[in-house]
């Protein structure tokens, strides 16, 4: 027995592509809109179980079980069934006094008894506590053992994984089976991460101060020594501009002028003075303006991805 889902379009946009499922337990990782579309389609062909369906609040748990059992013509001892749903300790309580998790478990009684061959469950583990989830997993597995075709619709992948690995994801192009076997293999291959910390060492009034590269606004060459500018203050660095350029390049720095290295992440504006004269305005505290060589303009634009 197959479940057939036909294509649904909204204008030119495909909301749900067509697909057919094999019998058995299948998970569908969808969003709420697609869930709605699929449920509308399956309305006539299957039993839908939604979270918003009610129970009679004035009946006790035991009476609810008896009522639905008699209505479905199901044979079987009542107490065993109540125990299966994990509600034996609250069986004398009225439905309206139950906790939300218990109530949601109890709601599942109807699909459990009434569903024929195909059962669609929306958000099977929504608003259930840990105990409730375990019970729900058992109940769904039990239904699956009875050779029923069950389609679980949910937008929580982890929860769908409780019961099945047969999970499909939907997008415009179709249903894609999600492969979960690859994932555990990946971490083993991963090499030990190498910890590398690049600090820029500067001297200021006899103290050694270390800066993280992203803190630096720009570096300029003053009287032959490199001066690192951080938050509007200059610190002398023992390295040359060439060495600094090499060290800082991976952090998004760029030699924009013979005597300037700029942190590209801080560039706010490219100012054009004349056709051949340019400057960079930064968004640091001082809104510093630093020169930009004409020759470097093209390369810089490419780096920044602007035109």
């Amino acid at each position, binding site marked *: 027995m197959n479940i057939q889902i036909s294509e649904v379009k909204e204008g030119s946009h495909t909301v749900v592509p067509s697909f057919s499922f094999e019998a058995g337990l299948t998970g569908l990782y969808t969003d709420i809109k697609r869930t709605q579309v699929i449920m509308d389609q399956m309305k006539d062909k299957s039993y839908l179980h939604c979270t918003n*369906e009610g129970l009679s609040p*004035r009946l006790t748990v035991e009476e609810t079980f008896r009522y639905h059992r*008699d209505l479905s013509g199901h044979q079987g001892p009542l107490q065993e069934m109540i125990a299966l749903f994990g509600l034996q300790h609250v069986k004398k309580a009225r439905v309206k006094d139950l906790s939300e998790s218990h109530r949601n478990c109890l709601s599942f009684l109807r699909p459990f*008894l*009434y569903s024929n061959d195909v059962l669609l469950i929306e958000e099977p583990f929504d608003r259930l506590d840990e105990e409730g989830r375990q019970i729900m997993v058992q109940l769904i597995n039990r239904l699956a053992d009875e050779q029923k075709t069950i389609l679980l619709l949910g937008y929580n992948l982890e929860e769908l994984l409780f019961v099945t690995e047969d999970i499909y994801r939907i997008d415009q192009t179709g249903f894609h089976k999600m492969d979960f076997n690859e994932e555990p293999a990946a971490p083993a291959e991963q090499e030990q991460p190498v910890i590398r910390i690049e600090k820029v060492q500067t001297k200021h009034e006899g103290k050694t101060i270390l800066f993280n590269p992203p803190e630096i606004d720009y570096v300029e060459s003053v009287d032959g020594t490199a001066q690192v500018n951080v938050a509007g203050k200059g610190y002398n660095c023992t390295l040359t501009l060439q060495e600094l350029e090499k060290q800082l390049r991976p952090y998004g720095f760029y030699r924009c002028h013979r005597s300037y290295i700029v942190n590209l992440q801080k560039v706010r504006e490219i100012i054009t003075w004349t056709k051949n004269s340019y400057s960079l305005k930064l968004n640091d505290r001082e809104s510093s303006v630093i020169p930009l060589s004409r020759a470097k303009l093209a390369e810089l634009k490419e780096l920044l991805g602007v035109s």
Partner: protein
Amino acid sequence: MNVSVKRMRAIFIKDYKEFSRNYAISTMVLMPLFLAFFYQSAGASTLDIYFLPINMTFAAVTTFIQACLIAEEKENNTLRSLMMSPASMTDILIGKSALVFSITLAVVALTMIILGFTPANLLILISALMISTVFYIGLGIICGLFTKTVMEASVAILPVMVIFSLGPLGRGLAETYPVLEVLKWLPSAQLIMLEEYSAAGQTSDVGIALAVITVWTIITLAVASILFKKRMKDE
């Protein structure tokens, strides 16, 4: 159509539990009894007065409770699961009406005892009352299907009460306003006339009155089941 006594009994028991625990609905059965006491101590003598509490029972108890039972299922979102269950429409309708049917008969009997009313022919009156009960149950189902909550249902029975319970009183004005002559074809008015005829021994007229009530009942039941079927498809 498969009819299962077990399913009907399950619905009956469930409805009884819900009914007895919902005081807003269950205390309604006391209303006609109070009315009967009131009329009895005020010195009821005419048939019109005897039948007022009885016709009131039909609207305020039969139709109201039936409408509430259906509307409550809708309010709690449980009607859909009832329709998804293997129970057939007959199961559901009979199961849902059985409770109201028995309550109505008990309340009407009590009312008649309180009023000290002795019918001319008990058998004929009982059958007329039973058919009427089915008619008002049908009305209740229609009201229940058109409303969404118990609150709406209690408003929806007001027209039923005005037309069917108080309608027969309008017959007195029929001499001044000939239009009101139509009121005599109401099932509640026919019920009173039936008792008049049977006291006078006019057997053929009794048969006509009984037939009129039956026709009303059949039409109402047909409408109720069509609406219910439509509702089942919508779900």
